[in-house]
C-alpha cells in the first residue's frame, strides 16, 4: 500500500536500497606474519575486548589484498568474535579503507581550506591531466588512483598529497606532482618515503 500517490510500493515500484554489495574477493586467510602481528595487537587490549583491534586487523587485510574484500572481513570477524556485519559497519565508515580495488599507488590530494588556499585545486587538476583520469578513478594500467581527501593535518606544508595512506608529498605544485609520477614510474615505491619536510628552525 502507499501513503502518497508518488510513492507507490508494489512489485514494480519498490524502493531499492542503494547499499552496494562488497566485492567478495578471493578466499582469505592472514599470512602467518600478519596473523602474528594481529595476535600481538590483541595483547594490548583487555581479553574480552578483542574488537578494539578491528581497525588494525582491517589495515592488515588491506595490506595483504590491496583493498578490503568481503572474505577478508569475514576472516577478521571470526578472529575478533564479531559478526561480519559489525566488521563491515566499521570498515565502511572510515575513509582510509578502500572498499574496491585501487591502483598500486593511491594519490590522495588534501582539498580542505588551507591546502586549497595553497593551490590544491591546481595540483589535483595537474595530476588528473598527467594520469589521464578524474578524481575517484584508477588508470587503466592499474598503477595509479587519484582521490581527493579531507584535511590531513599538515596545513603548514600546503598543499599536501598523501600516497598510499602513509607517505606525504608536501608543498606540492603541478610540476612537483608531475615529477613524482615520473619518479614512481621509474623507481617504484622508493620514490615515496615517509614525510619529507624536516622541521626548520
Amino acid at each position, binding site marked *: 500500500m502507499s501513503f502518497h500517490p508518488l510513492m507507490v510500493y508494489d512489485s514494480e515500484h519498490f524502493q531499492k536500497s542503494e547499499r552496494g554489495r562488497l566485492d567478495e574477493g578471493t578466499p582469505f586467510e592472514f599470512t602467518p606474519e600478519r596473523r602474528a602481528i594481529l595476535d600481538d595487537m590483541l595483547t*594490548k587490549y583487555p581479553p574480552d575486548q578483542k574488537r578494539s583491534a578491528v581497525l588494525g586487523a582491517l589495515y592488515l587485510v588491506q595490506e595483504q589484498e590491496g583493498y578490503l574484500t568481503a572474505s577478508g572481513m569475514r576472516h577478521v570477524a571470526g578472529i575478533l568474535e564479531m559478526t561480519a556485519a559489525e566488521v563491515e559497519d566499521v570498515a565502511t*565508515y572510515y575513509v*582510509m579503507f578502500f572498499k574496491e580495488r585501487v591502483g598500486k599507488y593511491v594519490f590522495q590530494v588534501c582539498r580542505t*581550506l588551507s591546502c586549497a*588556499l*595553497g593551490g590544491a585545486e591546481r595540483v589535483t587538476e595537474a595530476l588528473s591531466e598527467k594520469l589521464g583520469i578524474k578524481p575517484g578513478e584508477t588508470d587503466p594500467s592499474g598503477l595509479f588512483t587519484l582521490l581527493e581527501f579531507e584535511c590531513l593535518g599538515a*596545513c*603548514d606544508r600546503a598543499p599536501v598529497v598523501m600516497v598510499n595512506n602513509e607517505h606525504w608529498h608536501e608543498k606540492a605544485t603541478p610540476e612537483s606532482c608531475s615529477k613524482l609520477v615520473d619518479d614512481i614510474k621509474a623507481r617504484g615505491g622508493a620514490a615515496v618515503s615517509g614525510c619529507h619536510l624536516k622541521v*626548520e628552525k
Partner: protein
Amino acid sequence: MEPILTKYVGEPNSYTLDFFLQHQGYGGLKKALGMQPNEIIELVKASGLRGRGGAGFPTGLKFQFVDKKIEPRYIACNADESEPGTFKDHLLMERNPHLLFEGCLIGCWAIGARVAYIYIRGEFYHVQKVLEAELAKAYAKGYAGKNILGSGFDCDIVIHRGAGAYEAGEETALIESLEGKRAQPRIKPPFPAVAGLYNKPTAVNNVETLCNLPAIVTNGAEWFASLGPEKNGGPKLFCVSGHVKKPGVFEASMKTTLRELIFDRAGGIRDGHQLKAVIPGGSSVPILLPHELDIPASFDDVQKAGSMLGSAGIIVIDETTCMVWAARNLLHFYKHESCGKCTPCREGGDWLYKILTRIDNGEGEMRDIDLLVSVGNNIAGKTLCAFGDAAATPALTTVKHFRAEFEAHIREGRCTIPADWRASGTPVGAH
C-alpha cells in the same frame, strides 16, 4: 617567552630517548612518582591548565572528576588531530615523543590508570613509526611498563591507529572508535570520567595538554600560571597557515596578540596582498576581521571578541579569496565528515553545501541567503556533539561578515573574485 614544549624540536635528534634524557627528560615523572596522586591533581588544578584540544576545559577538574572508586581506569590521549588548520600535535609527537609519554604516565599516576591509549590518526603513519620506535626504547629503559623507575607503578602505553574520521576527535566518538566501532558520539551524561572506555572511568586528553604536565610538576603551578594571562596559563602552540609568508607552529604565551602571531611570527601576509579574514581556532570557529586582531590569543579574550581559540589553528585569508567559495570548501569537509548519527547535522550539512554550491556557481537566488542562515541555525545546538555547531559556523559567519559577496554572486550570476591559485579550467571533481 622561552619555548618549553618545542624548545629542542629543531635539533636533529630531538626525538630520541638519549637526547630527551640529556635535557632533563622524565624528570617530571620522577618527581611525580614521589608525590601522592591527589597532590598532582591539586597541582594541575592550581596551575589552571586548560585542555588544548579545543574546548579549553580545566584539566585538573577533568582528572578530579574521574571516578576513583571504579577499576580499571584509563587515559585516552587524543592524537586524532583533524581540525582543519591544526598541526601542532603532529610536531610534538614527531619531534618530542617522550614528552608525550611522560605526560601520559604522569596523568595515569594522577588518576590511578594502568594504561594510556594514544589514539593517533591514521594519516600520521610516519609519526606513529617514530612513536613506536621511541616507546620501545622507553620500555627497554624502564620508563614505561612494569615497575616504572623502581617505584612499583605499572603503566602501559598503547598506540592505536585510527583510520580517517574527523569525528573520532570528539571524546566519546574517540572512545567508540577505540572500542572497535564507528566513531560516533555518545549521549552525555554519563561523561567519560564516569563511564568511558569499556564503560570504565576515562580521562580523554589532547596531546599538547598532556605534554604540559611534566613542566607543571617540575616547575610548579605558580610558574605555569604566570606564563599567560589570568586563567590562561602556560605555553601554547599556535598553528598559522593559509596566505602567510612563513606558515608553521609557534609556541608563545597566550598574552601574545593574534596580530603578533600572524605578522611577526608567521611573517605576515604574502607579498602584494592584504589581509581579509582570520579564522582563529580551526575551521569550526567564527571569523575575525583584520581590525579585531589586537587581542591576546587566549581562550577568554578570543571568546570575548566573538570567536573561539579552539585548537589554535589560525587560518589566514587574503583578499584574493572568495568567501562564498571558502564557506563551500569547509561545508564540503563537514558534510563529508558528519558521522550521520544526528539528523540535523547529517541532512543539514548537505543542505548547506548544496545551497552554497549553487550560490558559488552563480545559480542562487536572493532568498537562498536567508535559507542558508535558517538551515545553519537549525543545526547549531541541536546535535549530540559540537560537530553540529562546527558545521553551521562557516556558513553563518561568512554570511554575517561578507553578505555583500553572496549578493554579488547572485546578482551577477558568477563568482566575482576569481583567484589565481584556483583551478584554471572547469572545477575538477565537481561534486
